């Protein structure tokens, strides 16, 4: 407050601040500022804040569209109780968390290896980077259908290759078995998302100054030691970004499941988002669906917070 208002009173040009005519202009600027952020904030509130509020309201009411005559009366915690009693929610939760942990761990390790590979200067580096960006950039529909083709027993490459190599399993109908279906989903998910992790971690690697390694080498550190003691700690911010994005995306996995397995065989690959979609658009039960949605939001927030907390810079 002090220096700036003195500067203003003396009509001195303030460095970095608004031009000296500012007294009134500053107020006008502030008003303009609110006007300029308003469209973004309002539009995002419409597509996130409003659904959250509406879901909360629905989750305490009986809102079933197929039962149009029924009054949409207040039912208390009935929809939330149903999460744990009648339907497959606990099983889907366990499955979703399992998929999340396995896919994020495997994809992070592969992504780190890929990032270290791209960090070296070699011929064909640009080609490799373009080649891994394409799987990331194509629609999930493409990766899901592409891997459905690859795993198809009749027209797919996987069984064909196993057959040529005389390996067991060349007659596998991958999407028809619970664990083989999960394996196929995992491959499709990793193919699309490992590049994303690699790109983020590569940027993190490039932020580490080279003389850090020089110093470590002079001190006689081995490659593994300098990776373990220098690279990994310095990579922490990039790892955090990659983990937050990937963990939440894996927790909310929907497209791949819907397209590749449809939740099957049986209900063995139904995830929380799949269950949520079914509640809304198959059963048209917006009360129960609202309860699932609210839990999705709460769990997502908790997980993002937990990752940021665990990975916080330690200084």
């Amino acid at each position, binding site marked *: 407050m002090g220096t700036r208002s003195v500067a203003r009173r003396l009509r001195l040009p303030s460095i970095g601040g608004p031009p000296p005519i500012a007294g009134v202009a500053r107020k006008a600027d502030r008003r303009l*500022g609110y006007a300029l952020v308003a469209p973004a904030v309002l539009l995002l509130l419409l*597509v996130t804040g409003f659904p959250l509020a509406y879901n909360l309201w629905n989750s305490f009411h009986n809102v079933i569209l197929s039962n149009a005559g029924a009054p949409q009366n207040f039912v208390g915690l009935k929809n939330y109780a149903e999460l744990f009693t009648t339907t497959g929610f606990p099983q889907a939760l366990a499955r979703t968390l399992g998929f999340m942990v396995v896919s994020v761990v495997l994809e992070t390790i592969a992504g780190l290896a890929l990032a270290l590979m791209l960090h070296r200067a070699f011929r064909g580096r640009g080609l490799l*980077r373009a080649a*891994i960006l394409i799987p990331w950039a194509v629609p999930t529909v493409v990766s899901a259908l592409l891997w459905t083709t690859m795993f198809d027993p009749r027209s*797919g490459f996987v069984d064909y290759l196993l057959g040529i190599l005389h390996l067991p399993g060349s007659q596998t109908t991958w999407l028809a078995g619970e664990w083989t279906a999960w394996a196929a989903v995992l491959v499709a998910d990793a193919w699309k998302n490992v*590049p994303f992790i690699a790109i983020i971690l590569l940027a993190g690697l490039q932020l580490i100054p080279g003389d850090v390694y020089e110093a470590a080498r002079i001190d006689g550190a081995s490659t593994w030691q300098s990776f373990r003691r220098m690279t990994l700690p310095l990579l922490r911010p990039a790892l955090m970004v990659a983990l937050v994005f990937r963990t939440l995306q894996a927790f909310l996995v929907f497209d791949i499941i819907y397209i590749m397995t449809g939740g099957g065989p049986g209900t063995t690959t139904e995830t929380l988002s799949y269950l949520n979609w079914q*509640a809304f658009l198959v059963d048209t039960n917006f009360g129960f669906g609202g309860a699932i*949605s609210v839990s*999705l939001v709460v769990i*997502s927030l908790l997980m993002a917070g937990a990752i940021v907390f665990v990975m916080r810079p330690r200084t």
Partner: protein
Amino acid sequence: MASTPASTKLSAAVAAPVAAAPRVRRWRTWRGRRRLGGQVLFYLGVLVVLLIALFPFYWILRTSLESNAEFVQGVGSTNGLVPAHLTLSSYIDDFTQLHFLTPLLNSAIVAFGTTVVTIVVASLAGYALARLPIRGGGAILTFVLLAGFFPVLAMVGPLFLLYRDLGLLDNIYPLIITYLVYTLPLSTWLLRNFFAQIPKELEEAALVDGASRLQTLRKVVIPVSIPAVFTAGILSFILAWNDFAFALSFLDSPSKFTAPLAIVVFGQSQFETYFNRIDAAVVVITIPIAILVLIAQRRIVSGLTAGSLKG
């Protein structure tokens, strides 16, 4: 004149031992051999990654070039890595019998619409957050970024009810507003960071000359920010082009489908799943994205990483 070959010979003779020495030593010493072995392993690794990334695309291209009859026979000894007879019949079927052009156009309209709205809205918000003295700017920015993590399926139910009440179901235009949840957080963040780096003197000169803030934004800030605007635009287009969940939930009639939804429905509506037809459509929607990646590789990488690592 005659000295030219001699001097090259001489310089070659001088240079040769220097250049050749490490190569010879490489084979002779244990350490050199290990390093060369590492080099070979490294390039093998690169090759494996290239194959994993690109071979599946070859496989769908291969499948898409089969006729229905050949597809039904499956992959076998005569019909392996390359199909016995190449034909474009799957592509022709997609566009004539399955009317794939309509969903492609729908997708293009929605993705372009989303990109334009995103750029305008994100530029305004990004400018205000970078330059104008608004209170609570940090909180607003946090909200915009957090919105990007909102569960998509938690939006589907309420927006379905809203669009139903407004008579906007089975209509592609509401998708543009819906897709902003994919595009606005990243674009606003990117543009805000870019605007914040522009020297203030540039704007101040225009402001002193009597230009309004909005004129300055349009005539001074945006022109020097074209690279960032372009990056935000490409990423927005990709994100909007890729949606499946919203299209699946809000669209009903085939003439309104977006391309990803149409392809998935191709697969479900037939008794026999003709992957050759499905994969032909997959190839078609992959091409624009592949071209975008090839021409704008650097921008996409810098957008993704600047969007997540700075600040």
